[in-house]
């Protein structure tokens, strides 16, 4: 909502500059995007009303006029001008040499085709008052030459860019904003603009409401003998500064009144209507060509304005082309109505058509403002077009009664944490139109939709007191400041992987294909919720490698989703990683994770289509392996684990064992076994055979060579034995060692190497 401040000040008398107004509005009313200064940038004194004394064709240029203009100085000025829409006697807008125009051009005395020109006779676009450049501005004949032009035209304007929230339809109106400014800054709010002109006749208009739910009120006014033309410069300037295009005086008035009061209006060419107007639901498939030239097929949910035969407009959104006011229009039917918001919103969505009108209706316009809007528009049309007002009808059902809400004065302090005296509460509310009655406060009609409960009234007081509210902290009796086990575990896993050289990645939740498809996907690549994480890391890994990064290693901790036949999918936290270098990279990362969580891990050979068939393993909580080379060039290690499963498996407390004061006996044993026997199986057998004296066990070497023979390898193990009872002797350990050798020989055919 763009609001020229000169316009705002027509309705509020307040001793505050633009910055003060912005400051107050942005804290208590609505976001302000800024104040823009438009128009003449510098000295205003060089802009004058000029009286054209003489005007004739330039002797050496067919398109130029040579004029002599009285600008209030002791001699007339000669000005060369390119426009022909005036002659001697006209009052015009003049800029003298030294004046700077809104576009930044500074005028100089100079020769045009041999004739001296001392300044410029201005067109509206040159003053940023409109877009027309077909002729210069012709001013009112009654003005005196030399009058400061700034007294006649808004040469400089400050335009406020306000962004009201959807619950404040009253702020989509200059008058509504003026009401706020008056209340916030202690200004005087002037009465609503508009005064009924004298009625010249009592013709029937023929207004009807067929759908009282969709149309609460419908005012029709008949205006005869309008003379369609351009609006006066002040009106065009106001519209331009508000971001609305000027079209013709009648249409401009409807827009101007909408901007002033917030209730949109529409004007029809009365002679093109067949009978009166009725607000009704469209017939399924009915058609109307709207003002934007689009032929629209309507559904029975659309509200239309129709004459005796057909729809002539999409109610509240856009009028129809066939009954549009044009330059040949002689008689006008003016509509000021009130439409129900949700229906307008739905129609506007259905037809993908948002207009200044629909934007207001969908927020809920006060039905009581339709009357003043009709009055003000009638007055302006009569004044600006010379029309006669010959007929009026106002059809309305029962308009909603403003609610009366009880406000317990102490409640304000309880909510705000700031005591606001009762009389101050009433005073604040009074300033924004809440009337204090015995039973409570009567909500002003323009706030009826938003303010329905006591808490809503408290908010109205609150927004005036925001800067005064102190900074306190809640008084607590209970605290909750601890991460859950799952959250601690996630942090731990992240830290382990960072330590192992992985950079954390964030990738999209969405993938191209999956069980959980979105009926309306974001794109072909983002059409389903992912069930695994690792696949999302392939592309970033490839791109980093392609761009020359070294030691590429990425991980992600995020959720995966699985359809389990309920309304909501199952969501589980996973961690996945990818690293250049192959199987050992994945193995190392997974070992580190398990070890950090104090979890025993066991690995089994597995096969997955995306993994190298000889380098893929499974653990109880996920998988790891080397990626199949068909998936990504080069050797890459990858893994994915279910963090929720890890959290369930991980011990909550450390299982501590007492440390023995006696030295351990260490032994290294190497066995030759078949290739196919996994080291883990041998470790398990050793552990079983060794019994309770075994303190430590690890495999520390793998060897293949002539001595091991074809299809066999040697694995070396480091064992440590100990006891809490005393120092072990050789004869204590020897039998254990023998039973290990026996067990491995009988189970795997393993041969102890000397």
């Amino acid at each position: 909502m763009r609001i020229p401040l000169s316009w705002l000040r027509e309705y509020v008398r307040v001793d505050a500059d633009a910055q003060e107004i912005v400051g107050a509005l942005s804290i208590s009313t609505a976001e302000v995007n800024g104040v823009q200064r438009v128009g003449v940038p510098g000295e205003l004194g060089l802009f004058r009303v000029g009286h054209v004394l003489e005007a004739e064709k330039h002797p050496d240029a067919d398109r130029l006029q040579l004029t002599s203009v009285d600008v209030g100085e002791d001699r007339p000025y000669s000005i060369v001008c390119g426009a022909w829409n005036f002659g001697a006697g006209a009052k015009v807008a003049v800029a003298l040499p030294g004046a700077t125009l809104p576009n930044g051009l500074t005028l100089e005395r100079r020769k045009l085709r041999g004739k001296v020109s001392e300044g410029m006779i201005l067109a509206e676009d040159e003053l940023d008052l409109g877009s027309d450049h077909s002729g210069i501005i012709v001013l009112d004949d009654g003005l005196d030459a030399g009058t400061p032009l700034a007294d006649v035209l808004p040469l400089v304007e400050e335009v406020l860019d306000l962004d009201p929230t959807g619950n404040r339809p009253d702020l989509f109106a200059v008058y509504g904003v003026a009401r706020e400014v008056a209340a916030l800054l202690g200004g005087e709010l002037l009465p609503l603009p508009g005064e009924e002109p004298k009625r010249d006749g009592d013709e029937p208009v023929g207004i009807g409401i067929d759908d009282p739910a969709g149309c609460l009120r419908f005012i029709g006014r008949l205006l005869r003998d309008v003379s369609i033309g351009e609006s006066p410069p002040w009106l065009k300037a106001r519209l331009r500064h508000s971001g609305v295009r000027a079209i013709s005086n009648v249409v401009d008035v409807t827009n101007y009144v909408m901007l002033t009061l917030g209730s949109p209006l529409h004007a029809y060419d009365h002679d093109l209507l067949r009978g009166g107007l009725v607000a009704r639901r469209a017939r399924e498939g009915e058609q109307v060509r709207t003002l934007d030239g689009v032929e629209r097929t309507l559904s029975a949910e659309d509200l239309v304005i129709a004459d005796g035969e057909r729809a002539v407009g999409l109610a509240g959104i856009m009028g129809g082309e066939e009954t549009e006011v044009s330059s040949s229009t002689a008689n006008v039917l003016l509509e000021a109505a009130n439409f129900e918001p949700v229906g307008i919103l739905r129609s506007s969505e259905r037809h993908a058509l948002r207009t200044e009108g629909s934007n207001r209706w969908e927020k809920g316009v006060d039905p009581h403002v339709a009357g003043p809007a009709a009055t003000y528009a009638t007055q302006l049309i009569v004044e600006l077009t010379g029309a006669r007002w010959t007929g009026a009808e106002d059809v309305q059902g029962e308009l909603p009664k403003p609610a009366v809400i009880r406000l317990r004065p102490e409640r304000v302090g309880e909510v705000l944490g700031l005591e606001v005296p009762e009389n101050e509460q009433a005073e604040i509310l009074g300033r924004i139109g809440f009337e204090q009655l015995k039973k409570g406060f009567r909500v002003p009609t323009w706030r009826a939709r938003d303010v329905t409960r006591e808490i809503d009234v408290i908010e109205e007081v609150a927004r005036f007191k925001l800067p005064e509210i102190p900074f306190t902290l809640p008084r607590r009796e209970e605290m909750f400041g601890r991460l859950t086990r799952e959250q601690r575990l996630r942090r731990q896993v992240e830290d382990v992987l960072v330590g192992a050289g992985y950079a954390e990645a964030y990738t999209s939740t969405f993938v191209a294909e999956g069980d959980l498809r979105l009926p309306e996907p974001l794109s072909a690549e983002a059409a389903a919720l992912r069930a695994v994480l690792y696949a999302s890391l392939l592309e970033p890994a490839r791109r980093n490698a392609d761009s020359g990064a070294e030691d590429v290693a990425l991980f992600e901790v995020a959720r995966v989703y699985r359809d389990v036949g309920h309304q909501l999918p199952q969501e589980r936290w996973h961690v996945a990683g990818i690293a250049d270098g192959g199987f050992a990279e994945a193995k190392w990362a997974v070992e580190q994770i398990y070890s950090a969580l104090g979890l025993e891990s066991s690995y089994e050979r597995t096969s997955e289509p995306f993994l190298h068939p000889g380098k893929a393993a499974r653990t109880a909580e996920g998988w790891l392996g080397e990626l199949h080379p068909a998936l990504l060039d080069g050797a890459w290690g990858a893994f994915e684990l279910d963090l929720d499963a890890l959290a369930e498996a991980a011990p909550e407390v450390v299982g501590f064992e007492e440390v023995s004061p006696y030295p351990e006996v260490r032994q290294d044993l190497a066995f030759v076994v078949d290739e196919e026997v996994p080291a883990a199986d041998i470790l398990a057998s050793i552990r079983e055979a060794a019994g309770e004296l075994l303190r430590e066990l690890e495999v520390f070497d793998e060897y293949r060579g002539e001595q091991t023979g074809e299809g066999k390898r040697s694995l070396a193990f480091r064992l440590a034995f100990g006891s809490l009872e005393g120092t072990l002797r050789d004869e204590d350990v020897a039998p254990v060692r023998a039973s290990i050798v026996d067990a491995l020989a009988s189970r795997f055919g393993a041969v102890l190497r000397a």
Partner: protein
Amino acid sequence: MDTVARVDPDDLEKEALAAAAEARSLAALSEVRIRALGRNSALKLALRNVRDRETGTKLNAVRETVEAALTAREEELARAELEERLATERVDVTLPAALVGPPKLRPRGTLHPSTLVRRDVEDIFLGLGYEIVDGREVETTRYNFDALGFPDWHPARSTRASLFVDDDTMLRTETSPAQIHKMEERRPPIYMVSIGRVYRRDTIDATHFPIFHQFEGLAIDEGITLADLKGTLRHVMRQLYGEERELRFRTHYFPFTEPSMEPDVSCFNCGGAGCHICKHSGWIEMGGSGMVDPYLYEFVGWGAEEYSGFAFGMGIERTAQLRYGISGLRPFWENDLRFLRQFR
């Protein structure tokens, strides 16, 4: 007459296709290719000596067919040879990484900037005695909209604004549903922050991405006031942006709070004098906040005035952008190591 011209194109084709199918290795196949399509092959000789258009067309068709068959067979054999090679590259997956590798010694990795901010936010609230709640990402419209007081006509309910799995199921548009779940789970005092991914239907560009992260706080207790909200947020903002920061409220509108305010923090860059970061206003917008709308209490079956509380929500990415001076959202999702590795 030249002997080559009498060659039957159909025979040539049959012969070449059979040879391709029989080739058992890439090496063998390359010999087949030379014999069938090489410079001195019967087909090439025939093509070179062609006299009439009809024969020429026929021979070219044969050449294309054979070419395609050879390429297809080549891929097949390459794949088989790869699988065969892979089958011989077996490791004992139960051996420790040190023995199957060893793995590379890599320089230390990094956490994502969003995680750095997330942990910081979590720690600040843990210090204030709040619990951290993750919450579901796929939610029912009942918890994402109805419970939060979104009217039927609210634009966020449209498929143009939000991402739906079906009519009643959607990706959460804010983390607030987790707060409703908590309220249903137990009575106040509740002091919680929900953090995580949220979703909007945005077209991807420099400043939009359909996924982002929020942290939303909720405090419900007896006697909580708007002043408590103001004090809590000022504390949090000072923790995040420096002890000298000031906080102010601007009135706003949200469906689930009443009164609703947007908090601004005095600019950490210029101290309030005005600069490009605060758009010359001296203040930086931080998100949304307000007093919990009594509607929510009634939704979970409590009395409208038994408790009072406040809620607020802010963006993790936005916080990271402000803290590190990152412009745009793309870097958060591109996973470029040159970006990620700076966050040590």
